[in-house]
């Protein structure tokens, strides 16, 4: 025996002594005094009867608390202010179903009379513990311990410390719940009585379990706990559920407790626990398929038996190893432990002496409900030790490469609770599921069988939105015309073309042509005719132009051309004939203007005079007579003087511009040389003129 094992054994003994000396697990039975209970004549008699009857049941123990509770509640309706009654109701609820109600009644008892019992705070702590109110449970436990006399405190401390540690472990586990769905197997499998110990056939088609429901009308109750004797039942799988639940019948089920605790790897043999046999032994019954009956159960190999209790057994699928639970004190580390035996030879019954799995697995507290996976690598078991959060919790350990076991891992909350969780069996065909026994919501009463569905990691639901991220399509396509296009400028250029010829011979002559916008008095185009006399010029608009043509040895030409009257739109043709400079040739200066009745030249005359000037400069030997003419309106004398003065004005202008006076003569002819009739105003306008005549070359 190792040092560690020795320490464990001593610790167990200490705990055992503590439990014997100070039965903290055994609730008190405070007396309800009649005179304290009395609260008025009406209803007292019936209520007191309920108290007395309730007390009878209460004394019998936990198995009768359900009956006691009903009676105490009747009494409570009569007088709710009796601390002892409140205490007992609290205890009844604590050991039946509603732990919250237990807290209510126990706290009421405390409030009414803190000294109602020595253990009131202990049970308040137990109730808080059960509902996962770990902080309040710890406080209650500590207060309970603090109020104990020193001698009792020493004895109770170990147990209270254990409970407080369970609270701390429970708090950690509850803060990190595992993702599982735990659901009861439903009506049929679960009843209003205790149902537990699920054992799955290897092919998953059958479920064996133990139930304390009445198997028949003659079913008897175990006087120890007032519950019907255990019997073994079987259910068939149908889809995800179980149906066709029925007892396996004789010879497996007897008048006494018969519980299923395991199944052979082939599925043909059921391991059964019978309490009356050898202090509590495991038996084996074979299933005969043809007759669908079991053989009479017989004790398993003696290696797995002792005069103590063996309560659970499991084999690997190759039948080379067996794990079982025993409370043999000579080999246990404390209470029930898990043992293992291997066969000397596969397929034989020659088993080696079982060995305790050791302190990694076993604790000074009870281990129970062992299960080894078919491959022999993973061990599941329940334990009141390790980091249980209260009662039995389910643990898992894996076999390491060196054959040792890993530190057991609590399967976590909500699989485990402060209540007892036992007989864990994974679903071999679908590892996402497992089965076990527990007392929890979703059951039908007492212990029940549940299925655990292991969910994966936490998953986040995905929201969906479909608003378009981009908006450009809403305004697409855009307008093509974002602004009005500009007008095109129209080229109104006109083309004027034609021939300049000698007036006498008709031959073309080279000359310089100038087009003057009559309105603007501005030269807008000039051109030079070629030797054939052809010319071309571009004019800006279809309007009136003055045309001046100069050629050497020819009199200069002055004429108005009105393109507006022409139907053409682009091209205009105008031919001009020039007269050679000959003595006697006359040229009428049409654009010489004077102030009315005077010989003062108007500025608009200067253009014409410039032409004359140029003509004389271009022809330096030319001598001209400048003559003034009038119409016949007014006196001859006045007209004569006027015509002379006007001629002289022109000469003076030319002389002032540099022409030698000797080249010029001025004469006034009044109305003596008309060129048109004086009878019309047009004729008279033509007659009012200035001329020049070539008088020498």
């Amino acid at each position, binding site marked *: 025996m190792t040092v560690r094992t020795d320490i464990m054994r001593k610790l167990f003994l200490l705990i055992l002594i503590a439990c014997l000396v100070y039965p903290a697990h055994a609730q008190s039975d405070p007396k309800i005094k009649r005179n304290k209970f009395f609260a008025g004549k009406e209803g007292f008699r019936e209520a007191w009867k309920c108290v007395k009857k309730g007390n009878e049941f209460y004394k019998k123990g936990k198995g009768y608390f359900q009956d006691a509770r009903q009676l105490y509640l009747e009494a409570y309706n009569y007088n709710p202010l009796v601390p002892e009654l409140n205490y007992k109701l609290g205890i009844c609820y604590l050991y039946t179903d509603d732990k919250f109600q237990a807290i209510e009644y126990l706290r009421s008892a405390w409030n009414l009379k803190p000294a109602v019992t020595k253990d009131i705070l202990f049970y308040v702590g137990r109730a808080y513990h059960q509902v996962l109110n770990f902080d309040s449970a710890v406080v209650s436990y500590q207060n309970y311990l603090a109020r104990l006399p020193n001698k009792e405190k020493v004895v109770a401390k170990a147990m209270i410390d254990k409970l407080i540690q369970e609270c701390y472990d429970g708090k950690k586990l509850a803060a990190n719940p595992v993702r599982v*769905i735990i*659901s009861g197997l439903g009506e049929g499998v679960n009843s209003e009585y205790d149902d537990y110990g699920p054992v799955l056939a290897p092919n998953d088609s059958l479920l064996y379990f133990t139930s304390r429901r009445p198997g028949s009308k003659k079913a008897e109750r175990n006087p120890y706990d007032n519950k019907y004797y255990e019997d073994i039942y079987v259910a068939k799988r149908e889809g*995800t559920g179980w149906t066709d639940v029925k007892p396996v019948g004789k010879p497996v089920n007897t008048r006494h407790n018969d519980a299923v605790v395991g199944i052979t790897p082939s599925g043909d043999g059921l391991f059964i626990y019978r309490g009356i046999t050898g202090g509590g032994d495991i038996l084996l019954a074979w299933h005969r398929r043809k007759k669908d009956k079991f053989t009479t159960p017989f004790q398993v190999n003696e290696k797995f038996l002792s005069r103590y209790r063996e309560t659970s057994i499991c084999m690997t699928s190759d039948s080379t190893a067996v794990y079982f639970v025993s409370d043999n004190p000579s080999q246990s580390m404390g209470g029930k432990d898990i043992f293992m035996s291997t066969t000397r030879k596969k397929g034989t019954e020659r088993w080696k002496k079982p060995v305790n799995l050791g302190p990694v697995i076993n604790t000074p507290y009870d281990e129970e409900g062992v299960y080894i996976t078919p491959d022999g690598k993973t061990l599941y078991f329940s334990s009141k030790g390790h980091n249980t959060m209260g009662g039995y919790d389910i643990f898992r350990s894996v076999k390491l490469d060196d054959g040792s076991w890993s530190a057991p891992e609590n399967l976590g909350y909500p699989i485990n609770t402060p209540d007892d969780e036992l007989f864990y069996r994974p679903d071999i065909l*679908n590892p*996402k*599921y497992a089965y076990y026994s527990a007392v929890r919501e979703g059951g039908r009463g007492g212990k029940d069988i549940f*299925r655990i*569905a292991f*969910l*994966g*990691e936490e*998953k986040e*639901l*995905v*929201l*969906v*939105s*479909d*608003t*378009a*991220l*981009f*908006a*450009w399509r*809403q*305004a*697409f*396509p*855009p*307008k*093509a*015309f*974002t602004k*009005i*296009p*500009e*007008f*095109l*400028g*129209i*080229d*109104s*250029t006109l*083309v004027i073309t034609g021939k300049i010829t000698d007036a006498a011979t008709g031959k073309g002559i080279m000359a310089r042509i100038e087009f003057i916008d009559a309105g603007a008095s501005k030269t807008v185009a000039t051109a030079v005719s070629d030797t054939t006399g052809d010319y071309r010029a571009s004019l800006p608009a279809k309007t009136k132009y003055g045309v001046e043509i100069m050629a050497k040895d020819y009199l200069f030409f002055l004429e108005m051309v009105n393109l507006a009257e022409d139907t053409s*739109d*682009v*091209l205009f043709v105008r031919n001009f004939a020039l007269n050679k400079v000959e003595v006697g040739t006359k040229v009428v200066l049409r654009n010489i203007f004077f102030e009315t009745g005077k010989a003062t030249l108007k500025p608009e005359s200067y253009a014409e005079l410039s032409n004359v000037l140029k003509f004389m400069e271009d022809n330096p030997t030319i001598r001209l007579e400048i003559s003034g003419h009038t119409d016949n309106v007014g006196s001859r004398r006045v007209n004569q003087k006027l015509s002379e003065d006007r001629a002289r004005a022109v000469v003076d202008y030319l002389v002032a511009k540099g022409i030698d006076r000797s080249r010029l003569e001025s004469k006034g002819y009044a109305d003596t040389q008309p060129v048109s009739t004086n009878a019309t105003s047009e004729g008279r306008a033509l007659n009012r003129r200035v001329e020049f005549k070539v008088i020498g070359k």
Partner: protein
Amino acid sequence: MNRLLGCILVLFLFSAGELMSQTVSADPVAKLRNQRNYAQAYNQAIEAIKAGDYSRAAVFLDKALEFSANAPEALLQRAKIFFTYQDYDASLQDLETLLKNKPETGEAWYLEGLLWMIHDSVPRALQCMNEAIRRSYTTDEAFFYRGVLKTLQGDYSGAIYDYTMAIDKNPNHAIAFHERASVRLMVKDLQGALYDYRMAVGLDSMFLTAYNNMGQLKMILGDYQGAVEDFSRVVRLDPANHQAFNNRGQAYYLMGEYPKAVEDFYAAVVIDSAYAAAWNNLGNAYAKMEKYEEATTYYTKALQIDSGFAVAYLNRGFVNELLGKLENACADWNMAFSLGRKEAEKYIKECK
């Protein structure tokens, strides 16, 4: 001898042709006359465009082009008229003719770019927009649409640059702000995106898409209340905007206000009973309230509307798992995976 005559004939014909062509092409009067007629017809077309009478304008432009075939201004305006009347092929034809002769016409490149966008030919459209801008057609719209094209091509930084240019040209370009915001969102510049969305709605208070997107961005930034306000605005302006209800429902959902989320998701499906997204989200809200059976009915409804709705399969799988229906959950995840939700793969592994 015959050969000599033949040569002479050829020479004569060639010369005549040359002379004729010279005469025709060199006839300035004819040229001038054509130019004037063209300009007159063109200006009449512009008058018609001004008056909004595009069909009349088209007649004048046709006439103008008779006087001056391939005249760029006329081709451009006619291309615009074709564009307006959605005769995109004709528009494209005119533009291609124009650009063959006058490739420096930036506006023509821009218009052609739009046409390629209409034809969903993004690379070609982008090419045209690049040409337009290179040819100095640097309007806000040219930059804007080039930005759009760059976005479609995944060139987000380029797109941001162009949207910025568009905004520079036209600071009131609400859509440019919006598009820039959305691109900024894609490159994870969340604050920049928020700024731009704010500008967009500041310029256009009826810009519902901007409010919706801004609200969604606020949800990412954790400003759920701000998001609710934005979506509420959309709902006020457009009570039939099922997307806004769906969005606001999501904001409430993220705030943990599941009953309000349910109300909004429900409103969305009342407006549009085929709105699969909202049915899915309704399922989520019920799941959060641990009403798993109801949740699955809504996911199923979403899937009835859209059998390829991978997310609904995924979510229904999650809820089936919470109901302990692991086989159903695995079947749903397998569907989700086959429909493209790759994350379902790790959940399917849990099934094994």
